[in-house]
């Protein structure tokens, strides 16, 4: 008996030491953490939560931070559209705060609504795809670092994250296929078309920035940005911005899910909480791409040090910059009208592709000059 007990305690100590090695250091909550660390078992849990990879993926800027950002951005989008149209927007749900919890109310409603699986649907895949489509959303979060925290530390994080993000449209097309309805079919085909139109200029724009900094390692990229990337290579930023709009189906390019034409395209048959999940997908993609663009173009987590927040300060800088970028993108929704499919294909294959080519040349020029 005594042997087993000591074995368990040794094992726990080992695990604890792994966690403690890479624990996030926040001076603000240090007294509480130290108090908790003295209690056995609890200390393992606390250390686990504060372990950098777990903190990164689950709390900030991971799952929790993402959920909050999405709830806010949906509210912000509705509110800013209302303001542009001289309306008030969501308000009565919480009068004092101007209705910030509107998106939460919508989410609750979806959570308790009936989920209909219609007779023609391929029920197995129909219900499965919305759930597993979280994989290509959460996995990139492992790779994109946030300064103080990080999931997996390699120098190839940006290519790896991009590869995973590009998987999302596959799931959307698959959802449309599983729905087996004509609107979903049209929407899926549109999505596939758009995918080819934006993916190449998008990758070229990112490659341009990697050439500019001569490294794919985000830590080095951020360290090198004493001039913002968007200023060094504005053409690359322009191409990146337009492709982000296309990739996340924001309004001038929300062709796959154009609700007035094809009634939400691939998502048309989803209802209840499953619809809530699939509707989040473009927003989650927007969150990831915004984070990436902040790292590439806006100095990532650079900012003045705040001693009391320790490792958390860079994470918060990144988070706030990401949300600001998302706000700018969602403003596009209330300003522009929708393009036709052929127009945006022409734009993607023509203008944006040539822009990203030019950006590549500019970056090459910078790189050659800086090396001299």
């Amino acid at each position, binding site marked *: 008996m005594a042997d087993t007990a000591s074995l368990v305690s040794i094992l726990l100590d080992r695990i604890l030491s792994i966690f403690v090695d890479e624990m996030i250091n926040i001076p603000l909550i240090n007294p509480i953490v130290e108090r908790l660390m003295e209690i056995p078992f609890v200390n393992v849990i606390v250390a686990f939560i504060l372990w950098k990879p777990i903190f990164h993926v689950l709390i900030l800027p991971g799952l929790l931070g993402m959920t909050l950002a999405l709830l806010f951005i949906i509210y912000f989008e509705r509110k800013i559209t209302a303001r542009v149209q001289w*309306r008030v927007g969501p308000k009565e749900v919480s009068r004092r705060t101007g209705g910030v919890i*509107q998106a939460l109310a919508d989410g609750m409603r979806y959570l308790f609504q009936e989920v209909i699986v219609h007779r023609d649907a391929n029920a197995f895949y129909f219900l499965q795809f919305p759930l597993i489509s979280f994989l290509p959303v959460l996995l990139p979060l492992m790779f994109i670092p946030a300064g103080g925290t990080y999931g997996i530390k390699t120098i190839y994080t940006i290519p790896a994250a991009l590869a995973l993000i590009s998987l999302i449209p596959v799931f959307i097309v698959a959802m449309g296929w599983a729905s087996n309805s004509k609107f979903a079919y049209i929407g899926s085909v549109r999505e596939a078309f758009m995918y080819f139109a934006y993916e190449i200029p998008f990758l070229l724009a990112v490659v341009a920035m990697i050439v500019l900094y001569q490294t794919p390692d985000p830590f080095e990229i951020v360290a090198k940005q004493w001039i913002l990337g968007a200023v060094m290579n504005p053409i690359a930023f322009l191409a990146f911005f337009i492709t982000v709009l296309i990739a996340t189906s924001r309004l001038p390019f929300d062709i796959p899910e154009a609700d007035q034409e094809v009634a939400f395209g691939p998502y048309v*048959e989803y209802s209840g909480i499953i*619809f809530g999940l699939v509707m989040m997908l473009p927003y989650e993609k927007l969150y990831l791409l915004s984070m990436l663009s902040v790292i590439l173009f806006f100095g990532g987590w650079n900012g003045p040090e705040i001693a009391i927040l320790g490792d958390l300060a860079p994470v918060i800088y990144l988070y706030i910059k990401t949300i600001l970028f998302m706000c700018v993108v969602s403003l596009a929704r209330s300003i522009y009208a929708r393009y036709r499919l052929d127009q945006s294909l022409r734009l993607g294959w023509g203008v944006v592709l040539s822009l990203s080519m030019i950006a590549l040349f500019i970056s090459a020029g910078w790189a050659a000059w800086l090396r001299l």
Partner: protein
Amino acid sequence: MDEMIEFLHDGPLSPIKKWGTKWSIWPTHLVTACCGVELAHAFASGYDGERLGVLNFGMARQTNCIVVEGAITRKMARILKMTYEQMPDPKFVIVMGVCGIKGGLFWNGYHMVKPFEVVPVKYFAPGCPPTPESLLRCFRALQDEIVTGEAKNTIAYPRVRLKSEGKKKRPKKVPPSPKYVALNPSVVVDVPRDRKWEEGMEYRQRISEILGEVAERITVTGKYRIHVRVSRDKFVDAARMLRDAGFDHVKSVNIVDVPKNKKFIVEYQVSSYLNPEFIRLILTLFTEIDREEATFPSLVDVWPSADYLERELHDLFGVWFEGNPWMGKPFLLAPDTPKNPLRKDFRLQEEVYIGGEDK
């Protein structure tokens, strides 16, 4: 299954469910008639229904409320039912306009359906059209009902009793329904009005040259209007002659029902696009047929543009156009509409008002 529904309704989580549903009513709008304008108004910058968390939506599958805007016809009723069945539970229906209550403007029409016979309606917004305020009040009442579970008026008017004058009371009775068969004198469609058009006589001359013996009587009935009476047997010949002379299309086909004389008057209004001589002239070719056995030779072969008009009249009057390929099938009307609704002796199911609150 029932336990789960029970759990959702009264379980510990039900307050969250009610709160969410209350603040997130997303109506799909079923624009069937003119009330749709007022719905747009209720969600535009003046009234802004989105304040209440009410967001207009185009799709049924993702929403929880239908706003029926106005008249529901027999054809639309099917669509209303389908839309309702597509929506996930919990779902609500709000009806705008008097058309949705008893038919309103179209009361006792042969094509009207009352929405509350098709789907369970929660609230009515009366008015023709109702104001945006009253529509938004419906949403408020619905929100209150979701939380408290009881339907209440959101506004209560004080009750006023009118003092009677002491004279003899008028009986509370609605005037009787009008007689259906009009007893007016026989209808004459070609009353001559030569004075209205000076050059009319030249045109009359020209038409009579074209038609020769076939025309029974040619009359100028107004400016650029000429009526030609032809017998039923020679109608197709007359049409051919006119077409060869340059009248290349049919503008409209009419039937006038004259039950007193037991006849239908069939009119074809023809004109010309290509012949500059007749470009402004509208010539009405008409004849009378027997009301009991209403058949008529179709003019589809002469003027293809008469096709749809003949189908429509077959629907509404039951005249059989021999030679038109569509005869015997409903064209515009829903399959369950009563037959020949525009004949003057057509009778609907009698509908009665119940006047006053104490009968």
